[in-house]
């Protein structure tokens, strides 16, 4: 059963991590240091998002052959949902300055 919900667990971990990194990064002024044409904080968040998307996609792809069974189908569908939720989170990361209140 736990296998079926891994994509959502990945999303949850990703969500907590980006929220914490955002808070910590603003506290430590990572957004002031430039890195690869953008600020270090945004870059970190983008990398985290891409990593999460890749991980969830992999988890979904692994479930695809098992989609005839109940668990495989739930795992795959949850991966779809988790990818969408992660991508949604990614939108503001690329659009916004990280620390403006």
């Amino acid at each position, binding site marked *: 059963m736990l296998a079926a919900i891994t994509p959502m667990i990945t999303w949850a971990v990703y969500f907590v991590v980006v929220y914490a990194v955002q808070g910590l990064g603003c506290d430590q002024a990572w957004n002031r240091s430039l890195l690869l044409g953008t600020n270090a904080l945004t870059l970190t968040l983008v990398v985290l998002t891409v990593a999460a998307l890749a991980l969830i996609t992999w988890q979904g792809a692994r479930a695809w052959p098992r989609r005839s069974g109940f668990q495989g189908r*739930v795992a795959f569908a949850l991966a779809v949902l988790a990818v969408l*939720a992660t991508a949604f989170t990614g939108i503001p990361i690329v659009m*916004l300055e*990280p620390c403006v209140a």
Partner: protein
Amino acid sequence: MTAADVYREQLERTWSNAPGWRGQLTAVNHSTIGLRYIVTSLAFLLAGGMLAMFMRLQLGWSDQSVLDHETYNQFVTMHGTTMMFLFAIPLLEGIALYLLPKMIGARDMPFPRLTAFGYWCYLFGGVFLYTSFAFDAAPASGWFMYTPLSSIEYTPGLGSDFWLLGITLAEVAAVGAAVEIIVAVLKNRAPGMAITQMPLFAWYLLVTAFMIVFGFPPLILGSVLLEIERAFGFAFFDPARGGDPLLWQHLFWLFGHPEVYIIFLPAAGVVSTVLPVFARRPIVAYTWIVLALIGTAFLSFGLWVHHMFTVGIPLLALSFFSAASMGVALPMGVQVFAWIATLWTGKPWLRAPMRFILGFFFIFVLGGLTGVMVALVPFDWQVHDTHFIVAHLHYVLIGGMLFPCFAAVYYWLPLLSGRLPDEGFSKVSFWLLFLGFNATFLPMHLTGLLGLPRRVYTYGEAFGPAMQWLNLVSTAAGFVFALGVVAFIVSVVLGWRHGTRAPANPWGAATLEWAMPTPPPVYNFVSIPTIASRDPLWDEPLLTERLAEGQGFLRGAPRGTREMLGTSMRAGAPELVVEISGSTWLPLGTAIALFAAIVMFMVKWYWVSGGLLLVVLALVLAWLWTTGDRLQRREIDADPLVLPTQAGSIHAPGLWGTAVFVLVSGTLLASLVFAYFYLWLDADAWPPVGQGALPMVLGGAALIALLGAGALLHWLRAAGLAAVALAVYLVCVTIALTGFEASPREHAYASVVSVLVGFHAVHAGIALIMCVFTMLRPLALRIAALFTHYVVGAGVLMLAVIYLFPAVQ
């Protein structure tokens, strides 16, 4: 006398509550308690509704004086509190407790005493909260109790204490119910009912129960911290002493947003149960609905900050929560479209329950759409804390919860009473409710946009005539809605007493609760069915008769004990015979002692309160002592299988229940650790200047003692030695706290560290008692070991947070 008569006679004798008043006070049966929850919660609905009507009168026109400011603030607080904590959650608990065993083919919940104990806690907590009116000390800081308004400085009376203590007591009931639901769904289904075949309602309840396990502890913790701050002058939320008022908001909404889904999901489960029956076909996309449920549960924990869009958090952080709020609309969309597809491909017919489901669709979808709007950060900056939100949340909660619940009452009335609801009367109540509701709350979207904030007891003519007229419409329609509630209750009572006799399974349902006579006997099933499909009654039309004749597991009650089956988590293969408790005074006695301890705490008689807690402990030990086998397991002939009893088994409900309780406690600990780091983030130094650390040596000694306890139990199974090690640990911790060179009254650092240590010490104390208990009851070893290992792990984490973190930060 046929064999079936013998079975029934045995079961009646074994399962019935004791006669008279004594029987009512000692009852533990899930049907009795479930109904009691439902009736009590409806009483609170009426109380909370009355408060709302007074508020509507006051707001009916500008500058009214129906209520003065103080009374209005009390009413607004008590209305929200009542509806959320004393009506919505308990009503769903009641429906769940009443129906779940019947739907999964069980005779009761696995922990009947906990069922009863939970009910008493809820009742006492709710009544306690309402007695605050008698002392003119009703809480008035809003149902969300924001600090510092609710803190001792700005609310010096007992108002906040009534709230914090009463609601925490009521929450004990919800957590207890969650533990039971999880264990029942996973371990007490009918044989053969694979987890992929169980009724969707069981899925909804399972997911909801897990959400309670992770969602309620943050608020319980917050309430405890605030009460400690109020009673003993600790600092958690006071910025002058290193605290932070936003910590409260985080803890509150970490609970508060999942709470909305905790209320909504069981009601959606009703929709997924009732709708296919009236579409006369199995639900479309069962798997997708399960996935939507699980997805909702996860995403709903990523929404809490959307109640805090205006507190000054960076826009990007807000946007994470905005994105998750958008994300949660996706699984909702899946459910709505699956429901429509079910109707589309079925042959729908319209009766009272289905009418309320249709009403639910309109109201809930509208509320969901405004929910998407307020999830958008900039728009929320305008409408946050305005009547727009009042409108939105009533659309979601009344549409998403009340309408399905009323549908549920009509739908299951024939099961409860053997009589049908009156179609004409139900139609009247539906239209009063539906039209009254929309005319009350639709205008509030506009009054909010026109500038009316929430929780104001008055508004001036400066807001213009549109504001006055819209509010007048809301008030007038509010009374139509109230009339609808009365009509609903009258129609249900009339149907119950005088309705036409219902045939067996009157709606043609597929689920097991209809495979029994109506009204249902206390033992539910004469014998336990074997299930092979998702829609047992559709696929096996003669099931009801076969069960009544005893063609199933555990027919009758030849041994005179209350027996049910324990089955495997996935496939539902029979594993155990679970012997459960009959009527007993213990739940009521324990609840009374606990309640008395809380009252004594509030009036600051701390010694009396402590003494009463010892009484609670003694009663709990008596409770545990009288549960299950003590020394040896037995084999029971469950025909066609011979199965062992539960005690000591790896499949025992008690062990699984303990595991769920560990999750609850772990979430409490996690919330506390979150509080620690949250306070650290704002501090200049940690420990702050002028505050010392805990003595290092004792930390080391405590760690060794703790690890020792775990090792002794794991490798040597030496419960006695483990108890000694735990005692040593407690001594170390006590000495460490007395040598703490920091004052919890001066700074949040010392406060949070003291509470961390204290929280863990209580757990270590419980583990110690369990270890001693195990020496007398060897079969309890597995449970004691599970809990002790958790305590060891939690202790290591706690010591690392306290000792290691400040060194490495």
